[in-house]
């Protein structure tokens, strides 16, 4: 057979052989390019006697980082400084995503509102925010923050225990107390309990048709348990009040202007995109669904919960995830306004060690890790929602 085929079709026209030939060609080109770049780089590094390798991670960094979630000083290593940066990136992404979801959903639903004024305003918001570069927005908020607010000595004090000045927003927090640990623990227990309760209620409803007020009961558990623990410890009320000592406020918790500007810029920008996603998702559910749900006597809350949301979410979630990833990636712009995120710390590291290749590789690896883990989660989620589908 083979012989016959090759007689009919000359081998250079056989798609299979051609395919192999093309691929071999591509591999050769690619390998050559890689070899060329690597050999150039090695030659250049050697010629200019630039150090290579990641051994610098264990060396003393000798620079300070403005804000940190874990203890850090200039006596620590570059490795630890980079971890501090990565945690800062996670921090700003976490709060950014939370706030973006809230604001984005609000604006997206406002756009669908039958109220003309509200929907116009929401449309104006999305149109304007989407069309202005996020970096410009970051610069704008940062400048607004430090140009408009007074110095610490003349700080605005709208509410007792809250200070606004060009060093940031400083607010009172509860004083450290043994109860807090247990409150956190009880919150965890309450969440787990609520989760199991939900599953049980669902199963019961599926088998017996009896409805269980799951929302109110779980809300009660989640709020009630920590409060009970708090009361058990004698309701510690002491607050750690910030006070002006020397140059800056001591005590309380501080949100730096860089953090606030970054958060504000990212949230306002990304929320505009999320609003569009939410709107498209809700609109993707046909009106007939709402009308049908109404006609079988569901209340409007139930219509949203049981009919619209499950269908809309399937449309919303994939683009929403990519917006959340965008927010995380855009948080790298922190370097422009001086918030010590991962890129900013890596940048300083590159500067001090001169090892730019390793530094940029680290930046890319960390963000790739974020993205890949998110897409892994997304794949899992998609599979899960698909299973529920029918």
């Amino acid at each position, binding site marked *: 057979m083979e012989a016959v085929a090759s007689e009919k079709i000359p081998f250079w026209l056989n798609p299979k052989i051609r395919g192999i030939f093309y691929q071999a060609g591509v591999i050769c080109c690619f390998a050559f390019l890689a070899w060329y770049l690597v050999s150039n780089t090695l030659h*250049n590094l050697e*010629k*200019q*006697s*630039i*150090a290579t390798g990641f051994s610098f991670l264990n060396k003393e960094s*000798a*620079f*300070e*980082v*403005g*804000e940190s979630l874990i203890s850090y*000083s*200039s*006596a620590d290593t570059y490795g630890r400084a980079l971890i501090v940066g990565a945690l800062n990136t996670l921090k700003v992404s976490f709060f950014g995503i939370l706030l973006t979801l809230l604001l984005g959903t609000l604006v997206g639903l406002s756009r669908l509102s039958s109220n003309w004024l509200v929907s116009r305003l929401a449309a104006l918001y999305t149109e304007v925010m989407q069309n202005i570069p996020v970096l410009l927005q970051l610069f704008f908020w940062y400048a607004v923050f*430090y*140009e408009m607010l007074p*110095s610490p000595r003349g700080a605005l004090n709208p509410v007792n225990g809250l200070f606004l000045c*060009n*060093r940031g927003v400083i607010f009172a927090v509860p004083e450290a107390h043994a109860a807090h640990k247990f409150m956190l623990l009880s919150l965890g227990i309450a969440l787990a309990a609520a989760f199991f309760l939900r599953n049980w209620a669902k199963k019961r409803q599926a088998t017996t048709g009896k409805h269980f007020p799951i929302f109110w009961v779980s809300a009660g558990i989640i709020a009630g348990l920590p409060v009970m623990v708090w009361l058990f410890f004698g309701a510690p009320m002491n607050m750690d009040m910030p006070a002006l*000592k*020397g*140059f*800056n406020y*001591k005590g309380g918790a501080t949100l730096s*202007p*860089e953090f606030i500007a970054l958060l504000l810029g990212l949230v306002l920008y990304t929320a505009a995109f999320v609003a569009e996603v939410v709107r498209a998702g809700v609109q993707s559910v046909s009106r007939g669904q709402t009308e049908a749900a109404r006609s079988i006597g569901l209340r409007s809350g139930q219509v949203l919960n049981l009919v619209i949301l499950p269908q809309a979410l399937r449309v919303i979630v994939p683009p929403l995830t990519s917006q959340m990833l965008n927010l995380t990636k855009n948080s790298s712009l922190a*370097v*422009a*306004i*001086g918030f*010590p995120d991962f890129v*900013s710390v890596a*940048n*300083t590291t*590159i*500067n*001090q*060690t*001169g090892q*730019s290749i390793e530094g940029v590789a680290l930046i890319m690896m960390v963000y790739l890790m974020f993205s890949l883990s998110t897409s892994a989660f997304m794949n899992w989620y998609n599979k899960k929602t698909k299973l529920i589908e029918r």
Partner: protein
Amino acid sequence: MKSLKICIVIAAVLAFAGVSLAGTLDDVRAKGFIQAGVNGGVFGFSMPNDKGLWEGLDVDTARAIAAAVFGDAGKVKFMPLTAVQRLPALQSKEIDVLCRNTTQTLTRETTNGLNFVAVNYYDGQGFLVPKKLGVNSAKQLDGATVCVLPGTTTELNAADFFRGSGLQWKPVVIENTAELNKAFFAGRCDCLTSDVSQLAAQRSVAPNPGDYIILPEVISKEPLAPVVRHGDDQWFDIVNFTVMALIEAEELGITSKNVDKMLKSELPQIKRFLGVTPGLGKALGLDDKWAYNIIKQVGNYGEIFERSVGPNTKLGLERGLNGLWTNGGLMYAAPFR
């Protein structure tokens, strides 16, 4: 269409790419100008004026090199670089020489593959604070928020200083000099730390210069010198002796105004220096008139200092360490023979 686009791309690449394989001197001669990396944001050292013309001590040093190589101080182009970019730009031959108030350190000489030539400004790090804070010593800065450029020796020195003195501090790092100053003058930080000369420069452009003082403590040594790449000794010699020539000329009393008269001088060292007695230029691979061209077109070190940062400028810096060794300073040129 596609082939058209490819052609455009190739044409663009060819238009933008430069190839240089020989030594730096030959490259520079071939392209007809020197590409110098500068800061771009420090008044008195390197900053464009209203008309976009570059001015300052670092800029004039680069011009002097152009005068030595081409006999024309105008054949130099400036590229503003951030702190992160400056060393890679030099390593990758994007620039021929870096005149960007860069501190000579052991690490930079060794693991970064750079060579520092003779120092053109001796500096030290200090602190600039608003007067109204009522601070008169750096030791009182406990708990302060400090504006500092990242990736500089300044940042490391500040960390060392506060750690060594057992003081608490909070750095605010913004990579761009101009942005950092803006944040400081807007009150984002209690103090700004940098080399004293730069602090003076930054104060001079403050909205109200009188509202700020430089604290007396100088916490580091900052020998600022032009930088070239490792491994090109001829180019190193040229840049090195250009800086030295500026100093030597001041010591010999040769200025841009009297240099023509000095050509007729009978002193053997002046005759050698100005190339009346030939030999020195040849040794560097340059024209024998190289030093004459530098002084004629750019002036000696004293002149540059006076017009860029000296007492009669907005900066108002004294010569101090940057005086000639004969006047108690550190400026000392190797003999020209």
